[in-house]
């Protein structure tokens, strides 16, 4: 199955012209025309056109719900289109099943990495198409072939017999990519591959992607991060409401404002709204002093005033999220104190933190924040339903009313308190989390990766919301892997690396390069 020619003859297919948007350059590897797919009468795809050339990184942009996931599933053979044609290397193709799609040469790397913990790297790479003789797996050969593929990916250092369950997200991604190559894929679909990676790992991912494309493999790249698309992409196709609204846009030069307008149908003038100075007389709402968690971070001190946004910048694994969780009491601090409006918190007690008015919007909204099958209003009142209750009896009327107020205030869409939380987009799910703490009357909001899984159009909205919350007298702490987001949102920034605060100061006196420099120096020291 593995086509060794690819690595031997990288120039067999001409690499794409970076940024070139000439549609007649060569015959597309994949051509989709008028793809339609409905679910119980609702059109998820309503006429999608897509051309992908060999050796290019083709970016697919669109808001959540625009149809990207459905399109990916069509490509993976998991969904059958109701109408439309798929042409592969000039011939009509049918991606009738996942097996057929793989046989054609389309491999998909899902956002939730589909590797099996507990199996080795080699076993995962050949999962589903094990090398076997008479039912007995040929493990040595599988390992040798896996080694070849890993070498090609520039990751020959990964032992082929390592348990995948013990690998990082970045490592799992390499395994997933190796699996795609083991199928001799000519087109690899990557669904938000960078979502789980820090910036160093993303750089590595890009290196691998470039190697793949120079060998003639096409990559369909899906990401919410526009700067990544600028860096790695060749051409862009934009989906909106299940339709292709633009295609063949040059990735490097199309203005951001145009892309956002195409995706959302709206114009966003400013991503980060301007900040007003926090009055010096503002009350100190959150005071963190000498906070430490053994083996994770030490001696973290900062304070946040009413109306202020403080950002924690740093790479994944630097201890940022753990700091938030420790302030919140979800982890028990081994040193230091946390005070809210002058009152010291009992360490290691979420209930105490919540009572004093701290709210956390966790990093993994779906697994840590929401009851996905429950109605929106029940998610909003998850920490307050006892307060609305009369004795032991729930008062759902009052809960709904309170939720409805927040739905209006935060412009939650759709504005239906009874809809299951699962059916809302990432941005609106984030608003549920904010609504929960606003109903509670929290004045200290800890936001861990507030825009993860939130599409570009909705991000600006979340940013403005965060600012409006600060303006209304709340203290906000923001953690994000995207340094420009931390800098753009915050009044003050703490740069964290390896569990230590490297720098603390006003956000407008530091830029992204300086943050990265600090982090690199910090690691070297």
């Amino acid at each position, binding site marked *: 199955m593995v086509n060794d020619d690819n690595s031997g003859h990288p120039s067999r297919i001409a690499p794409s012209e970076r940024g070139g948007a000439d549609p007649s350059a060569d015959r597309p590897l994949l051509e989709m025309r008028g793809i339609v797919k*409905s*679910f*119980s009468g*609702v059109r998820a795809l309503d006429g999608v056109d897509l051309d992908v050339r060999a050796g290019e990184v083709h970016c697919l942009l669109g808001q959540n*719900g*625009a*149809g990207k*996931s*459905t399109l990916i599933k069509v490509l993976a053979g998991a969904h059958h289109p109701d109408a439309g044609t798929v042409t592969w290397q000039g011939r009509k193709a049918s991606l009738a099943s996942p097996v057929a799609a793989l046989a054609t040469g389309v491999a998909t790397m899902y956002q939730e990495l589909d590797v099996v913990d507990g199996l080795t790297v080699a076993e995962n790479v050949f999962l589903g198409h094990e090398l076997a003789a008479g039912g007995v797996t040929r493990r040595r050969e599988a390992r040798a072939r896996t080694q070849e593929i890993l070498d090609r990916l520039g990751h020959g250092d990964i032992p082929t017999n390592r348990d995948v369950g013990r690998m990082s997200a970045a490592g799992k991604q390499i395994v997933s990519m190796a699996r795609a190559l083991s199928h001799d894929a000519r087109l690899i679909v990557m669904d938000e591959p960078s979502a789980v990676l820090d910036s160093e790992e993303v750089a590595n991912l890009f290196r691998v992607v470039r190697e793949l494309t120079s060998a003639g493999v096409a990559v369909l790249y899906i990401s919410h991060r526009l700067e990544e698309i600028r860096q790695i992409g060749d051409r862009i196709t934009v989906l909106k*409401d299940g339709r292709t609204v633009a295609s063949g846009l040059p990735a490097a030069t199309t203005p951001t404002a145009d892309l956002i307008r195409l995706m959302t*149908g*709206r*114009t966003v*003038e400013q991503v980060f*709204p301007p900040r*007003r100075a926090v009055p010096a007389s503002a009350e100190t709402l959150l005071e963190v002093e000498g906070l430490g968690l053994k083996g994770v971070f030490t001696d973290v001190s900062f304070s946040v005033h009413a109306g202020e946004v403080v950002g924690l910048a740093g790479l994944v694994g630097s201890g940022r999220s753990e700091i938030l969780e420790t302030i919140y009491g*979800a982890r028990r601090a081994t040193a230091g104190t946390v005070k809210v409006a002058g009152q010291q918190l009992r360490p290691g007690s*979420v*209930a105490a*933190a*919540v*009572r004093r008015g701290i709210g956390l919007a*966790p990093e993994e909204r779906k*697994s*840590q*924040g*929401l*009851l*996905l*099958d*429950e109605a929106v209003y*029940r998610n909003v009142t*998850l*920490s307050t*339903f*006892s307060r609305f*209750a009369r004795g*032991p*009896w*729930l008062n759902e009327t009052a809960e709904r009313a309170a939720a409805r107020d927040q739905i*209006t*205030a*935060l*412009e939650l*869409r*759709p504005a239906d308190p009874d*809809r*299951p939380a*699962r*059916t*809302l*987009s990432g941005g609106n799910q984030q608003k549920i989390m904010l609504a929960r703490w606003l109903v509670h009357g929290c004045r200290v909001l800890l936001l861990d990766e507030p825009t993860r899984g939130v599409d570009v159009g909705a991000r*600006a*909205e979340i940013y*403005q*919301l965060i600012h*409006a*919350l600060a*303006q*209304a007298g709340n203290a906000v702490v923001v953690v994000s892997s995207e340094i420009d987001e931390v800098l753009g949102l915050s009044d003050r920034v703490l740069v964290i690396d390896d569990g230590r605060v490297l720098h603390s100061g006003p956000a407008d006196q530091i830029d992204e390069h300086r943050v990265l420099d600090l982090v690199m120096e910090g690691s070297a020291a």
Partner: protein
Amino acid sequence: MSEQIPPSLATAGSVPPDPDAPAPLERTGKDAAPPTGGYRRLLGGGAGRNIGLVVALALLCVVGVATSGERFASIDNVMAILRLAAVLGVLSVGMTFVITGGGIDLSVGSVLGLASVWATTLATQTMAEDTHWSVMVLTALAVGTVCGLISGVLIAYGKVVAFIATLAMMVAARGLAEIIANRRTQIVEVNAFKDVFQAEVLGISASVWIFILVAIAGWFLLNRTTFGRRTVAVGGNPEAARLAGIKVQRHTMYLYALSGCAAGIAAVMMLARTNSGSSTNGMLYELDAIAAVVVGGTLLAGGRGTIVGTVLGVLIFTTLTNIFIQNNLSISAQQVAKGVIIVVAVLLQQQLAARSRRT
């Protein structure tokens, strides 16, 4: 507040109120929404699932009438079915809470046995004779609750997997019951106890009344109280519940105590029905209870529970048993039929769940 704060705390400033903007969002979001309108909404909703169970129960009754006619349709037989359903029903209501809360309790049958033995020891019965029949009842409830509490502490604070903790309790409680009873059957001698629990009110026996009361109380507890909301939250997403400030461990412990208490109540009903405390009482009832709960539509993974469904599930199983007895069919054939019902019910549930979750 100044003019810089958007009046709605939101983004009115930079995102013009475009009437078309939310609409497409909603349209594309709909494929992820549960089906709306018509029979699908009916079948997808909580009431719809129960309608399916009612239809199944009605079909069973038709089969019963067709095969045994008058003997099945008589008042006496219906009462017999209800009496049979009562003990299992009370266990299943308790089990519904544990399963909705994301757990499982394999010990309820054994705990029932232990509670029935403990409530009928010579010492307990003598004390009941001397003071009040309620001594027996309180003994059974206390034994059940304490057993549940032990499992609950092990699971919530000791981090023992629920399956293992309650499996251990299942084995240990049965063993303890055998030791206390010395493998003898202990006859209920307290007449006041028999008078109360073997009485009939409005032609319906006391145990059926208890079942009805427990079911109603269970329904209110699950659907209308903060305890019920916490149960759903803890079962649906324990991490989210914890981060929302809910005391997940304490609540988990309460759930097992509740299930144990239900087993104690069931033990009292069992004593009333069989007139004897025996270490073999309630053998394998835990499996029947789990089956009834799951067939009723409670998610085994937790986060969604239905008392009405559980009651219907119990009635379906007991009616099935009754039909088989009426037709002199073997207990073995009955078990095969039960197995088939469980599988069919779960398959149907999964279909409905998939339909309401498709993305």
